[in-house]
């Protein structure tokens, strides 16, 4: 035995050497398939025979389940491998924890349960070795001292696992020595099994036929053997099911199958090699088991494989079988201890320790030592447990641990395909499954004959029969089916139900996507707050990494990664830094596990230099929600600034999305390109305005704090010329304008495209149609159509002729300023306009109108029409249109540069008109006796536009002393200077007069009147006719135009 273990040392050493020499003997599909066969442990090696001899074919499902699982290899196992490689997950607990938001709790539960289920399992292996050795040679004594075989084996195996299973700091690096040994041992156990099989079948019985004949006869004569050929379909099914899960989820299987997989292509071969191995392993099981029965071989049935050749004097063969059995046991112990050891470190101890270790410790060294300690711990626990129990009480331990592994299935396999599975759901499923597993499977199996067995297992707790562990609520099934049913039923139910009731955090949801969609193209990389690394540098990343994996390796890794990205420490850009960050997280995950990585990344304590708290910093540009902004040059910079500070963004652009992503480091932000290209939802044709609108609308409605970048409207308008009715373009722009009230709308327009005084950086604008490019001309056409529509056809022709003459002589459009010489030359070419299109207004598309010019033109048109049709009412003809484009109907009748007087007792109508004008895009200033709050509430007048006439000094609102006329004047002239389309309401005239005197107030109004005329403002003055005497009233009225307030307008 010792010699054999030394041989294994040699093989492992050889494999490692070959690996270092660059010619790996391990990295090939055959070794991979053989390493999967660590599945066949001593429990199956000896136990199959025992089961076949006592329960007939019931040993088979244990192998059929894995064979079936291999059919799903390409769908299921490949995905597990891909994910684990992508994110450097090194154990089943890493795997499940990572899927559910890198949860510590889930990883820890899986790790603890793995340890619990593995301990008796390892114990069984040790017992199997010592028991089989005793069968061969009796108790060992050296120099009179009884040597305990189990102890020697455990010690050697522990040392072996430590040396070859924990060589590197990065567990993702393959352990070639370990795998070489496992594969070799798989070969040994197969060969020894086949040899005994052949010997028993052909050496003793002379063929399979005689054995089967013999056993058939025995079945019919001896009632003890009656069940050998029958099948209990229920337990058959449950055993197939749990062995199916076990092959995927047992810690050691996950380790050899996923972690130590060096090439996906190897899986393809293993898909048939491994079932073939299992098939060969089982082909002689009935022969040996039933042969043993027919030969009346003494001893326990599990040992038939050993005792048959031994009792027939084939000592050498018996020894070889013993070596085979020991191979099965040792391989299992080695891989299991390494797998469980590393999951305990990554998912149980590391996250706990992380917050409690001082800065000065040698972490990389400590990590490696702890990994080794864990491995020894698993072996030691197994050994101690093996001392406490006898073999027969562990005979079914394999099934018990398969059952435990099956509890991982809903969370692990469900989470692999079902995105809605959440952390809470996984937690509920796992915990309930495990508790029930302990109660229904573990306790009844390991209870032995003590107090537990007699009281709890036999009669139920406190004598309550309904709660009997093997027959909950009186369910009468075999123990395994019973346990499979209850554990998985409750586990799955809670997993699904709790998942549906809970919502994952954004971080968890993002992880879920990268998990479930691992095979999809262009999977978004892990979300990392871009801002959080903007402040960090490469060196700081490296320093953090060095704490966990050592200085040299950290440096090498960072340098290699920089090379790969084709950049250097100084010139790295945001995108590359992100990729480096991704690599950094993955390396950490490989070394310390997912939940510890999350803590390192999240807890600013450990990575202070990198994690400059972004949440605390303010965005450089402040954009108030609900507004529209025109940003000619820095639109993308402002947009990026906003989205890195927690605002959700949507980018609609004419540029290449990938280019933008690279340049600005957008990660999650959806980018839609305005392009005629087809085939992707990332493209929207610029002529498909309804789709574009719906896209923006649904985005805005889905987010509470959003920003939309539209680059740009000019492109949209140009693309739609002559393709889409102008009315439709207008509608689109107006709808966008309305939408902007629920988001921040950023338009990247050229300054020339906007006819307003705007700053080169950020300008907030109130309305779009009369501000941007040719839209006002579109609007003019729509308006003129509406105005002309009421005329009879004869008048209409006359009007159009007259208007066209006016247009040519330049008396309709005040200053027909073409957008550019070129376009006007084309658009206003007189040859193409008339006479073919008689009855059409000759409006060339090059004309650009601003708001004031637009209304002037409309009014002039109105006057021409009135000449021919005296009944024409301008305001009435366009009222509906004004409303449908969000203009105030008042605006058409108010001529800029005029001072109006509104006579009414209370200033209700005045305030109403003012409020409406301001809310429809004019810049307002209101001098009022009323508290701004009240005005805002009653008339919707924004408080910012109100100046309160009061002698109280007010800090909350802008106020002015009613006697301070110089101050009033300067406020008004300031306002007139800044505003684009000013409207002023003076409401407290009576109060002003009371506070000073009539003459002063009159002079003030006269002086303002001139300013207003110069700046083309609208000045509304409210007068209560009853408060002034006739002469005073008359003098005021003579300064101003009366504005009759029609009710209902």
């Amino acid at each position, binding site marked *: 035995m010792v010699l054999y273990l030394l041989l294994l040392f040699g093989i492992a050493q050889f494999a490692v050497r070959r690996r270092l020499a660059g010619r790996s003997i391990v990295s090939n599909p055959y070794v991979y398939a053989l390493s999967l066969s660590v599945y066949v442990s001593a429990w199956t090696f000896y136990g199959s025979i025992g089961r076949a001899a006592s329960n007939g074919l019931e040993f*088979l499902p244990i192998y059929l389940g894995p064979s079936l699982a*291999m*059919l799903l290899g390409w769908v299921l196992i490949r995905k597990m491998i891909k994910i684990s490689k992508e994110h450097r997950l090194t154990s089943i607990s890493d795997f499940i924890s990572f899927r559910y938001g890198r949860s510590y709790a889930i990883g820890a539960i899986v790790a603890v349960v793995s340890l619990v289920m593995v301990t008796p399992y390892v114990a069984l292996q040790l017992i199997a070795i010592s028991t089989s050795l005793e069968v061969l040679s009796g108790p060992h004594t050296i120099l009179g001292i009884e040597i305990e075989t189990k102890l020697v084996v455990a010690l050697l195996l522990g040392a072996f696992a430590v040396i070859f299973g924990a060589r590197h700091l990065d567990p993702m690096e393959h352990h070639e020595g370990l795998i070489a040994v496992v594969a070799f041992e798989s070969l040994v156990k197969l060969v020894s099994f086949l040899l005994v099989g052949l010997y028993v079948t052909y050496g003793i019985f002379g063929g399979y036929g005689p054995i089967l*004949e013999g056993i058939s006869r025995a079945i019919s004569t001896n009632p003890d053997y009656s069940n050998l*050929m029958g099948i209990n379909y229920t337990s058959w099914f449950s055993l197939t099911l749990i062995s199916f899960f076990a092959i995927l989820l047992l810690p050691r299987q996950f380790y050899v199958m996923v972690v130590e997989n060096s090439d996906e292509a190897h899986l393809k071969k293993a*898909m048939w090699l491994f079932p073939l191995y299992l*098939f060969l392993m089982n082909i002689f099981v009935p022969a040996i088991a039933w042969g043993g029965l027919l030969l009346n071989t003494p001893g326990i049935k599990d040992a038939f494989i050993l005792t048959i050749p031994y009792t027939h004097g084939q000592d050498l063969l018996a020894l070889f079988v013993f070596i085979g059995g020991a191979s099965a046991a040792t391989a299992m112990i080695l891989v299991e201890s390494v797998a469980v050891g590393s999951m305990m470190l990554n998912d149980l101890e590391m996250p706990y320790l992380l917050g409690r270790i001082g800065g000065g410790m040698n972490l990389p060294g400590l990590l490696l030592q702890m990994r080794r300690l864990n491995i020894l711990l698993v072996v030691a626990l197994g050994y101690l447990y093996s001392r406490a129990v006898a073999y027969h009480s562990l005979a079914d331990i394999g099934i018990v641990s398969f059952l435990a592994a099956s509890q991982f299935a809903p969370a692990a396999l469900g989470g692999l395909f079902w995105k809605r599975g959440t952390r809470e759901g996984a937690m509920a499923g796992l915990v309930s499954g495990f508790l029930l597993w302990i109660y229904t499977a573990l306790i009844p199996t390991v209870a032995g004959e003590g107090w537990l067995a007699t009281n709890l297992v036999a009669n139920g707790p406190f004598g309550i029969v309904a709660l009997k562990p093997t027959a909950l609520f009186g369910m009468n099934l075999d123990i395994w089916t019973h346990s499979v049913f209850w554990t998985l039923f409750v586990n799955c139910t809670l997993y699904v139900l709790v998942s549906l009731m809970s919502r994952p955090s954004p971080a968890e949801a993002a992880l879920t996507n990268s998990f479930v969609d691992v095979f999809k193209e262009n999977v978004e990389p892990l979300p990392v707050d871009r801002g959080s690394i903007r402040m960090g540098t490469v060196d700081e990343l490296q320093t953090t990494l060095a704490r966990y994996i050592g200085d040299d390796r950290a440096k090498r890794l960072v340098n290699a990664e920089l090379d790969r990205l084709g950049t250097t420490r100084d010139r790295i850009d945001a995108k590359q830094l992100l990729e480096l960050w991704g690599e950094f997280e993955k390396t950490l995950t490989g070394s310390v596990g997912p939940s510890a990585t999350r803590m390192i990344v999240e807890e600013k304590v450990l990575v202070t230099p990198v994690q400059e708290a972004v949440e605390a910093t303010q965005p450089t540009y402040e954009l108030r929600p609900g507004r529209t902004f025109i940003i000619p040059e820095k639109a993308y910079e402002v947009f990026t600034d906003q989205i890195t500070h927690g605002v959700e963004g949507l980018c609609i652009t004419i540029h290449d999305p990938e280019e933008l992503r690279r340049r600005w480091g957008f990660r999650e932000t959806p980018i839609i390109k305005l392009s005629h290209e087809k085939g992707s939802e990332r493209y929207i044709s610029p002529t498909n305005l309804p789709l574009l609108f719906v896209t923006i609308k649904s985005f805005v409605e889905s987010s509470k704090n959003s920003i939309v970048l539209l680059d740009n409207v000019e492109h949209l308008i140009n693309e739609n010329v002559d393709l889409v009715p102008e009315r439709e373009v207008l509608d689109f722009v107006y709808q966008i304008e309305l939408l902007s009230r629920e988001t921040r709308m950023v338009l990247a327009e050229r300054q020339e495209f906007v006819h307003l005084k705007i700053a080169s950086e950020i300008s907030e604008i109130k309305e779009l149609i009369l501000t941007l490019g040719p839209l006002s001309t579109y609007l003019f056409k729509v308006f003129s159509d509406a105005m002309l529509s009421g005329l009879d056809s004869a008048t209409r022709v006359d009007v159009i002729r007259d208007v066209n003459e006016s247009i040519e002589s330049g008396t309709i459009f005040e200053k027909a300023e073409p957008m550019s010489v070129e376009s006007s030359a084309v658009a206003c070419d007189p040859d193409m306009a008339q006479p073919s299109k008689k009855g059409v207004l000759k409006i060339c598309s090059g004309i650009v109108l601003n708001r004031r010019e637009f209304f002037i033109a409309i009014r002039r048109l109105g006057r021409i029409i009135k000449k021919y049709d005296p009944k024409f009412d301008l305001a009435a003809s366009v009222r509906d249109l004004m409303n449908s484009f969000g203009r105030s109907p008042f605006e058409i009748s108010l001529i800029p540069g005029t001072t109006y007087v509104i006579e009414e007792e209370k200033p209700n109508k005045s305030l109403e008109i003012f409020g409406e004008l301001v809310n429809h895009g004019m810049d307002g200033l209101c001098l009022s006796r009323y508290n701004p709050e009240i005005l805002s509430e009653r008339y919707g007048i924004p408080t910012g536009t109100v100046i309160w006439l009061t002698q109280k000094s007010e800090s909350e609102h802008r106020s002015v002393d009613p006697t301070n006329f110089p101050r009033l004047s300067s406020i008004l002239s300031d306002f007139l200077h800044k505003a684009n389309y000013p409207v002023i309401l003076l409401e407290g005239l009576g109060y002003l007069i009371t506070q000073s005197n009539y003459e002063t107030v009159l002079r003030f109004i006269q002086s303002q009147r001139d300013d207003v005329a110069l700046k083309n403002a609208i000045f509304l003055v409210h007068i209560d006719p009853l408060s002034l005497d006739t002469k005073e009233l008359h003098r005021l009225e003579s300064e101003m135009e009366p504005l009759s307030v029609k009710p209902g307008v």
Partner: protein
Amino acid sequence: MALSIKDLFRQDETWVFLFLMGVALLNWPLLSLATGMMSVFGYPSILLYLALVWLLIILFAYIFDRRGSS
């Protein structure tokens, strides 16, 4: 209609189908048919049946490895 083994195995659905077929073939009630008949050429039919299904599983995976990969 061009049939191609390569394309067949490329689809995940093929594997899921084979898996479900395997589950059906290796469980009640199909299994009970095999247990019912006692012997074929002196061998218990159940053993032959199980071995046959098992070898079929191996065969499918083998064909995939051979044909599907290139």
